[in-house]
């Protein structure tokens, strides 16, 4: 039936697979439930992430439909708060993060010349844990009192007022955290121990590098989130008062703990995106990545700095002036390594020989639009201005510029770049271009007006707003509908035909400037690759025997 779904059945036909004869893996649903192959698990992660992207997208469209004009027409304020909360949680933990883990599963072993992930069964477990967690999250809408409505940040003491779905949400977060930690351990061990001989760390592809750093960030901060929500849980049910002011607790401490997790978390969602872009730009500029070493150092600096900037989310809590100054300076400092990355990408393009297939379109779109989000981040970092903009739509615009036009666009770039390798089928270039321009334009229609709303002081998480904000909200809602439909188009016109095997057969290396070991195996990548460590050339990008 399909190229992706039918590997074992047709595996005998794949070149490079016949060497070890027939494959005896499970078939049918068992193949997926008991999956231990990194490619199958990668596919599961990606499909799961896309499903959650759609669920979170529907919630977003309900929010935008309600905000299309002032007054409450569709939902009551209780449900509105549930929608914003669950949109955030589902997009962050259900869509963006699992999508990057899916990429890591598919590409890290292929890129470093490893046969599979280090812990194949733990890999299976970390994926299947996500299903009950997702069901708890989505199902919480049906619980008494509805879904959690305290915002994705789950600030105390509002969480203490929530119904039983809050506990379901906390449980889901715990499960997702455990899954992420296992996934990270797997990636770290795979990268550190299973690289093909000759693949030194400083020859490793940027995507593998960024994921190595990201995995460390995940291991460092997921337990912190677990701690914060566990304390919330015991405050709710077991009489503790960590964050409950009625018992002498401190609600602001929750925010410190949460953002100590939360800020590295936003880099967890962007560093692998930087990795994908750093692979695609050189491939389509037909020129080596400019400043590989400085890219590695810049990524590491961003990761380290991400631990000392958390309280810039809390400038309005009333920190002492010295605290505000420290977090303002530290945050502004992050723009330096980020700028280095942008410069390196532009320098990579400079005097290249560029073509603009869809992966490159999304990569250039990423650089352009992400930079806008980077600059608004710098403006927000400035504490005196942040006092005006904190908790307004300016912040909403900012983080959608870096998370949608940043992480999501990079994910799309990666899908277009590697889907020929995954499925053995070339997507239709024209459709990719339509998807890109449709997404880019509707994205900006949705989120650019939010900067103005925020500057004018419209607070976020508002179910209804003064009349003066009406026009920009209407524009944003129309853009959001367009953006949502663009993603349906993406699945129907691009992903599904490739998965079904409909389309031109992809060559082993569809992009003439692409480098790396993933292009040394056939398309689609056989079920098993690099079962014996490949012998690499001096640059560790070609297999020579």
């Amino acid at each position, binding site marked *: 039936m399909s190229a992706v779904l039918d590997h074992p059945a047709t595996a005998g036909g794949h070149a490079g697979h016949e060497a070890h004869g027939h494959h005896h893996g499970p078939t049918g649903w068992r193949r997926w439930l008991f999956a231990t192959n990194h490619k199958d698990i990668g596919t599961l992660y990606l499909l799961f992430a896309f499903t959650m992207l759609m669920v979170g997208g529907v919630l977003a469209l309900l929010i935008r439909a309600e905000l299309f004009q*002032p*007054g409450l027409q569709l939902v009551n*304020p209780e449900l509105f708060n549930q929608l914003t909360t669950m949109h955030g949680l589902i997009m962050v933990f259900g869509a963006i993060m699992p999508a990057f883990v899916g990429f890591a599963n598919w590409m890290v072993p292929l890129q470093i010349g490893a046969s599979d992930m280090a812990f194949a069964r733990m890999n299976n477990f970390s994926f299947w844990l996500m299903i009950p967690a997702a069901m708890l999250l989505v199902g919480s809408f049906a619980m008494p009192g509805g879904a959690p409505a305290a915002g994705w940040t789950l600030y105390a003491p509002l969480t203490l007022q929530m119904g039983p779905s809050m506990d379901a949400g906390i449980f889901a977060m715990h499960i997702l955290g455990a899954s992420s930690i296992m996934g990270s351990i797997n990636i770290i061990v795979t990268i550190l121990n299973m690289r093909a001989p000759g693949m030194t760390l400083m020859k490793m592809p940027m995507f593998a590098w960024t994921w190595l750093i990201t995995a460390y960030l995940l291991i460092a901060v997921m337990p912190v989130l677990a701690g914060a929500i566990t304390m919330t849980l015991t405050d709710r049910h077991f009489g503790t008062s960590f964050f409950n002011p009625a018992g002498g607790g*401190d609600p602001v401490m929750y925010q410190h703990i949460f953002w100590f997790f939360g800020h590295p978390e936003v880099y967890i969602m962007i560093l692998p995106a930087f990795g994908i872009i750093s692979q695609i730009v050189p491939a389509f500029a037909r020129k080596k990545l400019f400043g590989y070493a400085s890219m590695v150092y810049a990524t590491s600096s961003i990761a380290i700095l991400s631990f000392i900037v958390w309280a810039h989310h809390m400038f309005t809590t009333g920190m002492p002036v010295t605290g505000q100054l420290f977090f303002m300076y530290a945050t502004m400092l992050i723009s330096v390594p980020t700028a280095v990355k942008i410069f390196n990408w532009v320098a990579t393009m400079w005097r290249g020989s560029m073509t603009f297939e869809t992966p490159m379109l999304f990569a250039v779109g990423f650089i352009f639009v992400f930079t806008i989000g980077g600059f608004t981040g710098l403006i927000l970092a400035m504490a005196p*201005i942040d006092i005006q903009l904190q908790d307004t739509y300016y912040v909403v615009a900012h983080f959608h510029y870096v998370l949608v036009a940043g992480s999501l666009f990079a994910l799309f770039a990666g899908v277009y770049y590697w889907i020929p390798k995954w499925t053995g089928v070339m997507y239709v270039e024209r459709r990719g271009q339509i998807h890109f321009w449709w997404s880019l334009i509707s994205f900006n229609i949705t989120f650019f007006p939010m900067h103005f709303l925020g500057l*004018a002081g419209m607070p976020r998480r508002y179910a209804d707003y003064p009349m003066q904000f009406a026009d920009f909200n209407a524009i944003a809602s129309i853009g959001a509908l367009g953006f949502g439909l663009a993603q349906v188009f993406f699945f129907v016109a691009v992903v599904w035909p490739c998965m079904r095997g409909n389309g031109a057969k992809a060559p082993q290396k569809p992009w003439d400037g692409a480098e790396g070991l993933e292009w040394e195996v056939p398309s689609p990548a056989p079920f098993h690759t690099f079962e014996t460590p490949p012998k690499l050339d001096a640059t560790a990008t070609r297999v020579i025997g």
Partner: protein
Amino acid sequence: MRLKQVRTMKSIPHKLASVLLLAGAWVGSAAHAVADLPGGPAVNQLNLHPPVTRIAEEQHFLHWMMLIICTVIFVGVFSVMFYSIWKHRKSQGAKSANFHESVTVEVVWTVIPFLIVIGMALPATKVLVAQKDTTNADLTIKTTGYQWKWGYDYLKGEGEGLSFISTLDSSHRAMSNSGNVANAPVDYLLKVDHPLVVPVGKKIRIITTANDVIHAFMVPAFGIKQDAIPGFVRDTWFRAEKVGDYYGQCAELCGKEHAYMPIHVKVLSAGDYSQWVQAEQKKAAAKLDDPAKVWKLDELVKRGEKVYAANCAACHQPNGKGAGPIKPLDGSAIVKDVDAVKQLQVVLGGAANGAMPAWKQLSDTDLAAVVSYTKNAWSNKTGQLVQPSAVVAQRGK
């Protein structure tokens, strides 16, 4: 709760139909657009609110500065990128060069952004230090966030003792629920029953706290936003330079009515403010007991017992014996004196260099009651009665 939920979900198709109708009406009535709200948002406002305080002005300046620097860098970097995209294309016959490293270049474009960032941080530091300086306020007001309204207590300065609650006009809330905003007034969702009133040109210190969950007190025209945190107090300040009405809204998610607890600050001239204070104090006094009322002994003593427990017992002890340096009231010559003037002097003006504070903020009736109570409690069975009129007379001296 659950039923409500289900009802909401069920009514979505029905509401969808009505929203389509309304959307049509909205497009049709575009001519009947709302006007700007002075001191609040303007229609399709593109920038921060017009500043009314020095701090807000500085924030404006910083924002413009940042916007210009960022735009210049943005245009610069992306001119290079798009030039390259235009020029270095395969279809233009471009052959790729081979360079991919240059330590000099890397150092240069690390150091330059670093210097730019320092240049940005310096003016921001100045403003930040200024906006955190809440000392030497002329008027201190405690702002308490409740689900879902604001409470204002004038703690210190002209108007001291005033206290009221400020809630959204209920007709606006009803209009929001109806979903039909065709006739919404210009201050839709921003109109409150009792605005916060402050004098122009005076440094107002706002102390924030909350009763239930975290709220945030925000007035964009003043450049202030401060979380109101239950169990904790935080502060911010502003000095409004123009009389007028200024609007803000709660800026921290605080539950279902988060969008419905606006802030309205009325800035008055010094004279108007004094008049307002006097009028409010009269209104407040009118609500209190009539100080001319003549009380019976047992009534007044009963009331005094409560006042004593709330205000005096912490130091003088419930048994009136005092403790350590705290003077006993039980058996005290001043308390038992037939002439109450001495005791009233102490109660109204304090004693022992403020170790015994002045209690003039208590009402005349409360003071008369507590004095009468001490004259009759414990072993002080004097049977003497001090009427509120005596307190009024003493206050006048």
